């Protein structure tokens, strides 16, 4: 297949960006989307041009590095699929594709398709943990945990922190990311002692970083490569109100 690409190129955070057009011939349907970019970059390098910078690492949908908006959709057209797991068989010969980075003021562009997602780390630092020092732990089986609760916690814990939820949200809200971490920990007994302060601190940090609020568009859930449910956002809201009422 031949694919016509319009790729966002931007030299740096303060530089203006633009779409550049490229043609990639001989694309195999078994190629992954990023492998097509590898081919394009080889082509550009041999032509003496600068390759397109994009973040990628594990290429099996778990590290959360890759972040392309493809024809307006974060991670492209397939449900529950990160960009690196998207294969060219999802497209047709002759397709024209627009490829952009995540767009959100809390995720400034570093170069081309690479964005700065440090804001997510700072939200985690605000409370996304259980305060237990190494060596403090009791025997792992001393607290039985209901299997249903543990499975549900795992559903939320599966978040890969890619930021597609933010990219898809009209408000650039990080509520699904934050809600997923909160729900994971509040479903487990280990998460209870810090439950109130965790939700307050993480929600406040999210605002501090310039992410918007949730207005129930549910676009985040639609693009999430791990299929995380927006029920996590509802739980976050409940917990936040409870925590605020509980505060002096």
């Amino acid at each position, binding site marked *: 297949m031949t694919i016509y690409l319009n790729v966002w190129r931007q030299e740096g955070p303060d530089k203006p960006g633009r779409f550049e057009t490229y043609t990639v011939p001989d694309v*195999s349907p078994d190629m992954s989307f990023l492998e097509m970019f590898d081919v394009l970059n080889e082509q550009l390098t041999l032509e003496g041009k600068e390759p397109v910078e994009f973040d990628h690492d594990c*290429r*099996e949908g778990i*590290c959360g590095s890759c972040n392309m908006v493809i024809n307006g959709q974060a991670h492209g057209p397939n449900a529950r699929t990160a960009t690196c797991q998207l294969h060219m068989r999802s497209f047709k010969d002759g397709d024209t594709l627009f490829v952009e980075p995540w767009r959100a003021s809390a995720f400034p562009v570093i170069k081309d398709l*690479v964005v700065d997602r440090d804001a997510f780390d700072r939200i985690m630092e605000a409370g996304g943990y259980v305060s237990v020092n*190494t*060596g403090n*732990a009791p025997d792992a*089986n001393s607290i039985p945990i209901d299997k249903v609760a543990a499975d549900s916690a795992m559903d939320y814990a599966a978040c890969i922190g890619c930021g597609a939820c933010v990219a898809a949200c009209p408000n650039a809200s990080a509520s699904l990311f934050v809600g997923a971490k909160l729900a994971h920990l509040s479903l487990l007994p280990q998460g209870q002692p810090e439950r109130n302060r965790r939700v307050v601190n993480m929600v406040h940090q999210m605002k501090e970083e310039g992410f918007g609020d949730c207005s129930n568009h549910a676009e985040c859930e639609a693009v999430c490569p791990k299929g995380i449910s927006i029920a996590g956002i509802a739980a976050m809201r409940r917990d936040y109100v409870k925590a605020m009422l509980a505060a002096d």
Partner: protein
Amino acid sequence: MKLDAKEPAGPLEQKWDRYLKDLKLVSPNNKRKHHVIVVGTGLAGASAAATLAELGYHISAFCIQDSARRAHSIAAQGGINAAKNYPGDGDSVWRLFYDTIKGGDYRSRESNVYRLAQNSNNIIDQCVAQGVPFAREYGGYLANRSFGGAQVSRTFYARGQTGQQLLLGAYSALSRQVSAGNIDMYARREMLDLVVVDGKARGIITRNLVTGELERYAADAVLLCTGGYGNVYFLSTNAKNSNVTAAWRCYKRGAFFANGCFTQIHPTCIPVHGDYQSKLTLMSESLRNDGRVWVPKNPEDSRPPQQIPEEDRDYYLERKYPSFGNLVPRDVASRNAKYVTDEGRGVGATGLSVYLDFRDSIKRLGRDVISQRYGNLFEMYERITDDNPYQVPMRIYPAVHYTMGGTWVDYNLMTTVPGLFCLGEANFSDHGANRLGASALMQGLSDGYFVIPYTMGQYIAGESFQAVDTEHDAFKEAENASRERLSKLLSINGNKTVLQFHKELGQFMWDYVGMSRNSEGLKKAISGISALKESFWNDVRVPGSNDTLNKSLEFAGRVADFLELGEVMARDALEREESCGGHFREEYQTPEGEALRNDDDFAYVAAWEHQESGPAVLHKEKLAFENVKLTQRSYK
């Protein structure tokens, strides 16, 4: 230089306890004065950084990804071993130790492996306390499953995302210490050199991957937690950024590199499908619990797998190894897949794959149970191959997955450079010539949570530290060397891309230093790689500049180091005239085609010392087995 493993005296079961009893301590207000650098934030790095920070050390942590949470430990699927014996099936610390030593084909240090088995239970406790959502039974207690190379169920798991969950646990502990001000976290930084002052590791040079700036950091100890070197083969299950550079620069500063030829080729990966392929994807070994491996009996059989009747199928692992069946260790499973494809019985368009069939398990347990156990793996498989494994058997083939070799360390996890420690996959220490499934996560976390806090403390307490600042000549020299190298890479402007060189190197490694090796091939690899290295430095084209984000430049530096490593690996494989674990020398095999060890001559760790001019020099650390009897591994 004589290698001293510094193993504590006394009976095996008491070595670590005695070590802890005699340990020198650093007082809390002194810990604050000591600055420690941790390079890499995978399981080993994140757990070490968090724990040392909790103890009061001042930590600077570095990773090449944009966030500490993305280190490649995240991709481990199947599970983590521990000797809890919750299922009551006869497990114990001794048995986990024994299985690990035996699985490693008797090429690891008894004392290290025993300590690993002892720590295994603490790891599970710690992770559960952090909120890691391990799989549970309906009664609320933790679930276990079995893995290759063991006859007990001792593997704890979180669906097929155990590495992710354990790493996120360690990352959350790290985040907590960042917020407490005890860790300075530097993401998108690549370590380019080690700074040695008066014979001790005192700092590192990093490149800021966003601005290209070279940065100097000074410390009293440096912890190398930078993972394995599987990407020397180009195609592997490693993440694209996994590399040997940090470890290799330490090697060039005097840290010996051990057992480079011990690489693990994992039996259950999705087969290669085209020359544009950038990496291989692992399907967790846990699949072998319920999947049956087979090929057609007849090489000419071209029927679709569902139409091949039972009598025309060869379940070769079950046939050859009746007591372990599909759960033989990884090296045995991989080698047998190679044998059947060499016989022309491989399946798929390329003939380079075998079937992993769930038909019987689905019949026995129902689709729901199988989907609960492996749902996400099946989905991933279908996404990549467009085949539905509920209906047709998976096709799998071995791929490079893990490297048992690495930087040489003593019992303290200290390298041959005082003050430089090495943890996790980056060191060589615990898995011998073959690693058992679900043991990598265990080792990374054991090193980080439960070993280094004590052993590094012992070093700090026993040394006096002159203040060293980053204006010291050693920092200037190291920074200049890195700068010159980067300029050189950018100035060659040849005709071949970094990727082309990497693929050529990978082909040499896979063909001659892969699943099966021989003297002639290894010699071919050594001369071929040497010529390729020469050509790289004359003909590579690296686009862009140094003062910006430039992944081509990052990759160029890494491939340059892989070219040197490849040669040392081939020499290591040539020197080891025996077969053991993942290292299979065709000249040394039993009449049944199994690995034939030579314990009299090769029961040692091969540690290579870099020379400024001339080839690396081999040092041998003799392995003493006082507690286990060396036997021919048998999984029959």
